[in-house]
């Protein structure tokens, strides 16, 4: 093991996004160019973000903030560029717009709600 004689402080707060450990990780092996190396992981490696394929039908917050206003209703069909809600962050009112012509399927936020970064605010689907 990596010799860490220092006191271990509690790092549970870094583990908010519980990750599924693969067998490979439990054994603490690093694979580079098909070769398996026995080693130990550090905390940062264990807590790295797992990449997910982006879902363009999810409208996520690109900055943490507060929902100031919601301008649409579920089921509504909007054109590309139409405003859907206002997200206040860093004292700025950000106008969130439709990325393409589409239908509002689900609204996951309420007026006044504080949300973190990458929160799925709305679910939409494209309409011809």
């Amino acid at each position, binding site marked *: 093991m*990596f*010799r*860490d004689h*220092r*006191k271990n*402080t*509690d*790092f549970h*707060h*870094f583990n908010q996004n519980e990750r599924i450990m693969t067998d490979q990780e439990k054994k603490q092996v*690093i*694979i*580079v*160019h*098909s*070769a*398996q*190396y*026995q*080693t*130990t*992981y*550090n*905390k*940062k*490696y264990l807590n*790295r*973000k*797992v*990449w997910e394929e982006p879902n363009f039908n999810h409208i996520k917050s690109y900055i*943490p*903030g507060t929902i100031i206003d919601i301008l649409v209703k579920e089921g509504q069909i909007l054109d590309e560029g139409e405003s859907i809600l206002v997200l206040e*962050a860093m004292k700025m009112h950000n106008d969130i717009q439709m990325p393409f012509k589409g239908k509002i399927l689900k609204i996951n936020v309420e007026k006044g709600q*504080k949300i*973190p970064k990458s929160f799925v605010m709305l679910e939409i689907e494209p309409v011809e």
Partner: protein
Amino acid sequence: MSLKRNILDLRKRKDQVRLGGGEEAIEKQAAMGKLTARERIHAIVDEGSFHEYDMFVEHVGTDFDMGNKVLAGDGVVIGTGTIYGSSVCLYAQDFTVAGGSLGLMHSRKITKIMDHALKMRVPLIGINDSGGARIQEGVNSLAGYGEIFFRNTLSSGVIPQISVILGPCAGGAVYSPALTDFVFVVENISKMFITGPAVIKSVLGEDISMEALGGARVHAEITGNAHFYALSEKECFEQIKKLITYIPWNNTHKAKAFPPKEPKFKTKIENIVPADARLPYDIRDIIKSISDGSEFFEIMELFAANIVIGFGRMNGETVGFVANQPLVLAGVLDCDSSDKAARFIRYCNAFNIPIITLEDMPGYLPGVDQEHAGVIRHGAKILYAYSEATVPKITVIIRKAYGGGYIAMNSRHLRADFVFAWPTAEIAVMGPEGAANIVFRKEILEAADPEAMRQQKIQEYKDKFANPYVAASKGYIDEVIEPHETRKILLHALQISAGKDVQGPSKKHGLPPF
């Protein structure tokens, strides 16, 4: 007034200033497990060597009733002293005086001692313990920080700059330590962040303690902002004094030489490294079996532990070690380890410290997170730093030296002065497993027993390329050495490189991939 009365009056005035924020505030400071600003300075410098200046400086704030307030020394102690007989300039923020907040005169005292340090070409040690900008002084506080940051940058690479975080250091104030060479933190005492828990709570509704957000351990292990982590102020001061023995006083000097000592590490160097390149060992054991007295002063021990950096001595003179650590993440290069090594290489180069590189790494860490975190531009820093360095640069390849990592780890091609390899070295474009899968893909696929064929081809590739002799045949390594000869050959190489003098093309400055 007689002279005697004048003297008594002076003493009274000085005693008053030395009391800082008063008995009550000092007790509060002690209750937090913290020493006062002056106690801290005295704990670092040689006994009786400290001289304080600007004791009678007063703050200039007039708004919000500040005009009536007396702030002893405006919340900061500045002065000069010696450590092991050599001069240093110091400042220490005094949390007992208005929370060590930074106003115009407070910053003027700091910049005065910074100017002095640069002019006299002596190290600067800054002890940070401050609530932040003095809000009542408004933009004057910001001006003060700006003047400090500018001087940090001006002095960078000329004199060593050491920051000691012994209390809060929040908001803009964090950028002075970030611009300096070495940052020291202490468990439960140091707190550094740009926006504190209160702001995070109000914006995000997330509850986080100061310690969990920007405590000592976080900066030592996660962010890489801190270089040295201690469990008490006392341990921290010992670390500072130890560091001071390894570094030169300025960029035109060499670090002080000590009497040479033979290593005393017990395990034989041959017995540290497992023959199977896929098994780990602690690279620090190799360093300890090479360095004088087996001493190794590690920097950033917890951050990006897959690369090890630090100082040791060879024949009494300071050298910087950069070594891949197979024990952590197989010793791969990644964003953090590249950042860590590159900064250290540049430090050594700026301060005339030869660099010894010990190489055993399988390549760059694969993964979407690494690619998206910018491993290309971060990884490039290590190439840049080695290429740019003009101090003696010596590499010993112990086992794996594959692919881009081989080039990056101070290869001949980046103008290493000497490259040595153990007979266990494998210098190749990639490991045998990966290479066999690509080169013999067809044979493996079409074989009756693909796995047996794969193993056979891996062995074939291993026999042909997984050794130091292919690289040696091209002159990319200078000598294949027996492990027990490592120290001897390094001492010789350092001796030969002592007068090294190379000049690059003239330029204003290069453009490293920051």
